[in-house]
């Protein structure tokens, strides 16, 4: 009523304004930026290689040795370096998983939502079945079949993650295809593919991006959990989850072995959760999307 004549800002500018006024989102952005920086420049930032072993410097406490400010682990590797490389593993796994989930889930969800019919029926039932199956058990099953390793983890986690993206994309496309501008696109003779790619998907992107960003901490946690159980990345690659797992026997004395990687996991997840929530508040002010 009264707002019809107020100036309308662009959606993006509005979203940026909402995001930049959200203190938690900014903290999240800072944390995520920091972790990504560590992951990208791990080679330059870490004082030692992640697999460099000093047989004479096993299980040093933090600040015990000037060259190892955060101590060393049970086989004499610099803990700081391993923590930094752990960020790389964590980011590599979680970002790849979400990227693959997006690449699989988006087209499948979009096709199901747009074309409907038998295709939608089949895809929806697959999604239902996958949703009903406990994701963790499923992942462990795949890893035990395929054997461990970074690639296997990524594949295993992607298989359960694309479901979320496909479901959200399908729901979005289902509502958006009833919008008048889609009818209008058909009216000017646009092909089905053109309508899907030019008109539907660009408008469906906000909630999908939010789902992706909120999916990252889930993937980080899953990777850490699997590595903790010994189902994760192979030695000598550094992984926070594996570091916590390996510290098991020594933790009563060498507390830093468990505490530091746990802190790293917690801060990273917190960062991504804040960022994802911030993105949702910024891109979807009416809070329609539930992930």
């Amino acid at each position: 009523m009264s707002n019809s004549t107020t100036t309308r800002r662009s959606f993006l500018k509005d979203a940026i304004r909402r995001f930049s006024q959200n203190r938690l989102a900014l903290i999240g952005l800072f944390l995520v930026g920091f972790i990504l920086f560590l992951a990208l420049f791990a080679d330059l930032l870490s004082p030692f290689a992640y697999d460099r072993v000093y047989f004479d410097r096993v299980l040093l406490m933090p600040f015990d040795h000037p060259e190892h400010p955060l101590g060393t682990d049970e086989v004499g590797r610099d803990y700081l370096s391993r923590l930094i490389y752990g960020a790389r593993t964590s980011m590599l796994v979680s970002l790849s998983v979400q990227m693959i989930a997006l690449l699989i889930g988006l087209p499948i969800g979009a096709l199901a939502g747009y074309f409907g019919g038998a295709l939608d029926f089949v895809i929806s039932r697959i999604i239902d079945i996958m949703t009903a199956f406990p994701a963790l058990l499923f992942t462990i099953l795949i890893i035990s079949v395929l054997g461990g390793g970074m690639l296997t983890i990524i594949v295993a986690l992607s298989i359960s993650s694309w479901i979320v993206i496909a479901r959200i994309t399908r729901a979005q496309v289902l509502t958006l295809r009833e919008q008048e501008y889609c009818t209008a696109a058909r009216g000017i003779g646009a092909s089905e593919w053109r309508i899907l790619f030019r008109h539907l998907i660009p408008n469906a992107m906000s909630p999908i991006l939010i789902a992706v960003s909120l999916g990252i901490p889930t993937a980080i946690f899953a990777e850490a959990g699997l590595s903790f159980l010994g189902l994760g990345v192979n030695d000598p690659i550094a992984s926070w989850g594996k570091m916590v797992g390996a510290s098991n026997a020594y933790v009563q004395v060498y507390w830093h072995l468990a505490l530091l990687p746990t802190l790293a996991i917690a801060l990273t997840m917190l960062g991504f959760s804040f960022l994802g929530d911030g993105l949702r508040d910024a891109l979807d002010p009416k809070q329609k999307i539930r992930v």
Partner: protein
Amino acid sequence: MDEALLEVEDLHVHFPTPDGVVQAVNGISYSLGKQEILAIVGESGSGKSVGVLSLLRLIPTRDCEVQGSVHFEGRDLLQLSDAEMREMRGNRIAMVFQDPMTSLNPVLRIGDQIQESIIEHQGISEKVAKGRAIELLALVGIPEAEKRYRHYPHQFSGGMRQRIMIAAGLACEPSVLIADEPTTALDVTIQAQIIDLVKRLCREIGMSVIWITHDLGIVAGLADRVAVMYAGKIVEFAPVDQLFKTPQHPYSKGLLNSLPRLDTRSEKPLEAIEGLPPNLIHYPTSCPFLERCSYKTEQCQTPPEKQSISTTHEVWCHHAGKL
């Protein structure tokens, strides 16, 4: 009209937003007489709804700033406490809104919804209230009122629900009915029924009506007096015949000329009012209609004061009476 029932003086309603303050209503004054039907006409954003809903505090006060005074039955409505205002709403002043689909509670029987306000405000027994509710349903033209009393809102069509809303509004025999575009969501044949009903009720129970609308056709057949609003101000106030026969403000004149008429056919293009209404955040310091006005002169750089054409016909234009 000797004595005013409701008197609004210098009402301002402002909405603070991140972009600045939206000046939705800028100093409007009007009065409503007994048994009178007053129409407030304007386009979207003219402040016609806000100007009336803010009287009853139906716009959350945390969203807007309301200034001015509203005298009704010897009290200033804007000074009432929330509890006193609740007592006033529905009891002395009833309301009917545009959307009959969402104004009724879907999980309550309509009879109970009508009874609710009677029991709430008049403290009579449920049995008496029920009889009264059935009487009201019959009054607004719901057939088989006794049976329909037990039905739920979804069992009624849009027009019927609007009748029920009116029945619920009338439950406490209010002296004023405020109707905010009550027929906009309805078809013309149903609209004609509702208008007919309101006019009849106005005669039979001596109620006054403020009818907010954008449709000049409805105004012509319904209202006694008309206030034309533009950009949060009343630009012309007149008895209905005078407004339609001799409109004095360029905006009212433009509106009337821009309407295609059902009863005449002309090959000439319609006389459209070019341009758009002003931005209510950067409110113009000149006459608000200046940019779209074809009569503008130097004078119009200052906002016009009220000009009286006759005792009942007021215009806010420097050129009033000279068009």
